[in-house]
């Protein structure tokens, strides 16, 4: 059955070069959500924190202001891949421009918490990944974080935040989880099967929310699976215990 698409990205694409308020809004939503991967990529290109912040703001200001409509093509099925190429082109062209003049100016800005961005970037296990790979990984983590937040909101509404905190490690794979039996006791039931089922439900619900989040960034809902596989590939294989601990992002190194 054909679906009528109104995901954020498909709205933007359909508007094309027409200046539509709905498209702008959809675009703004997407940019507000996914600015960090752009920031991380810009940092990885070797820019210092302050410059990276400026560049990121600049990019989005132009993107949102001018719409970069001329860059949009119907075949740009995924916001992520579009953004990656677009930002790379932007940085390439920016290199020769003076940036001081670009600060401030009342242009539309996204709300970018510079200090938080910097701190987050410093925690990235950068190893020897390219900026593009870092972008993709940060993107994947961003999608997951949003989905987890939505799930937490849902569970908090029906069963309370405590319940979510108990079950969450079983979703995220955290070692520090309370065992099923322990949790069952805290619920006052003797059957840990109830906990197992609750965890299962949580995982299913998370899967659905995740697909929904991703759907917002692709034009064709049929692409959701493909996008998921792409993100899976970008987060990399699990490292063996023998591998060396990853390098931390370090500003003093020359950009690679």
């Amino acid at each position, binding site marked *: 059955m054909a679906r009528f698409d109104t995901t954020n990205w498909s709205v933007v694409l359909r508007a094309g070069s027409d200046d539509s308020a709905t498209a702008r809004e959809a675009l703004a939503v997407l940019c507000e959500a996914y600015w960090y991967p752009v920031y991380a990529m810009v940092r990885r290109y070797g820019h210092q924190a302050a410059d990276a912040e400026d560049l990121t703001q600049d990019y989005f200001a132009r993107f949102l202001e001018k719409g970069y409509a001329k860059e949009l093509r119907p075949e740009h099925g995924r916001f992520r891949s579009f953004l990656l190429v677009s930002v790379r082109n932007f940085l390439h062209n920016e290199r020769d421009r003076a940036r001081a003049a670009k600060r401030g100016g009342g242009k539309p800005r996204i709300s970018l918490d510079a200090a938080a961005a910097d701190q987050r970037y410093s925690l990235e296990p950068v190893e020897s990944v390219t900026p593009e790979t870092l972008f993709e990984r940060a993107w994947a983590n961003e999608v*997951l974080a949003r*989905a987890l937040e939505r799930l937490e909101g849902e569970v908090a509404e029906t069963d309370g935040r405590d319940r979510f905190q108990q079950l969450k490690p079983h979703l995220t*794979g955290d070692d520090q989880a309370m065992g099923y039996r322990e949790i069952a006791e805290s619920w006052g039931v003797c059957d840990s099967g109830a906990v197992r089922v609750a965890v299962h439900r949580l*995982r299913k619900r*998370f899967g*659905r929310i995740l697909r929904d989040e991703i759907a917002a960034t692709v034009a064709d809902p049929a692409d959701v699976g493909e996008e*998921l596989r792409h993100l899976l590939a970008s987060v990399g294989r699990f490292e063996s215990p023998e591998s060396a*601990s990853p390098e931390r992002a370090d500003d003093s190194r020359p950009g690679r």
Partner: protein
Amino acid sequence: MADARCRRCGGALPPGGGCARCLLALGLSEGLTPQTGPGPSSVDPGLEVSERIGPYRVLDTVGSGGVGAVSLAEQEEPVRRRVALKVVRPGLASVDVLGRFEAERQVLALLDHPGIAKVFDSGSAEDGQPWVAMEWVPGVPITEHCDRERLTLGQRLLLFVEVCDAIQHAHTRGVLHRAIKPSNVLVTDVDGRPRPKVVDFGVAVALGPKVTEQTLYTALGILVGTPGYLSPEQTGPAPLEVEPRSDVYSLGVLLYELLVGGPPFDPRRLRQAGWAGLARIIRTEVPSRPSARVSTLARGTVSEAAFRRRLEPGSLARELRGDLDAIVQKALEKDPGQRYASVAELASDVERHLGGERVTAAPRSPWERLSATLRNLWARVAHPGSH
């Protein structure tokens, strides 16, 4: 820190973060069709994957009904197929349950309707737990399907009539459902068309007359039905009062949800009220009629509901006013005697509305409803135990 490992896949965990691999895999397995089977991330580490029950090999626990866990299982001989295996929760089985299951199975096997998930087999596992193997229905709850596909009110009503047909088929053969709710009405692909299939028929009956919803709830914290979908008589202490019109009520709740976007009573409120509170609310509180409920929703919620029905926000309440309000109200009457006498009658009225004919349900004013409810309450207080 470098030693933090995901307890599922063993991969390294980022500090303070979750296992991105496993989390992403959850998204993938949610989109899988039955042919490709569940992915590795959907197998719970606590469950024996190679567990066998009867001739079935358990693949994955997919959820729970109030009665027990539901698993996806595979049968190899004499025919290779996937089934939904329901094993009765420990603590519910009693001596006569096995006998009842067998009796029910024979009746259920007579149900042959495209809208009803078939029952294949039943038996008891090594530890004595009764199990039932039924048709595996890969589908989404009807409410979710309607929202995903943004079905119009008319399209939703057509689907609803199909559901009624299935339930009516069972009623004429003496089988009540007793636990109608969206998760028991799955929409699945049949020959390229989305069709609803009702699952979990007769499950509640197998539990026997001593086990009531109240017992289940207070003793085990579970319900066979979903609180908001229980009919007033199902919240009472005498389960023998449950009859076909209880299913009519639950269908009324389903219809309400399909039209409005949410059930008549706030599920959270019901849950927090405890059993007594829940019973009181369902038995005495008259929910807003659909068009009125829509008018009181927050703007964002109305927009969303209208969007999911391909209507302008302002039109939804108007479309529901009149016929649909009346039909829903009649199905949700507290007194079974005031409801549609059968599921077939409910379906007919919906069809009349779709055909532009006059419906039999007459909208009752709030005053009429209130006085009818008070009369009913008075009768119960004065003569406890009678209808």
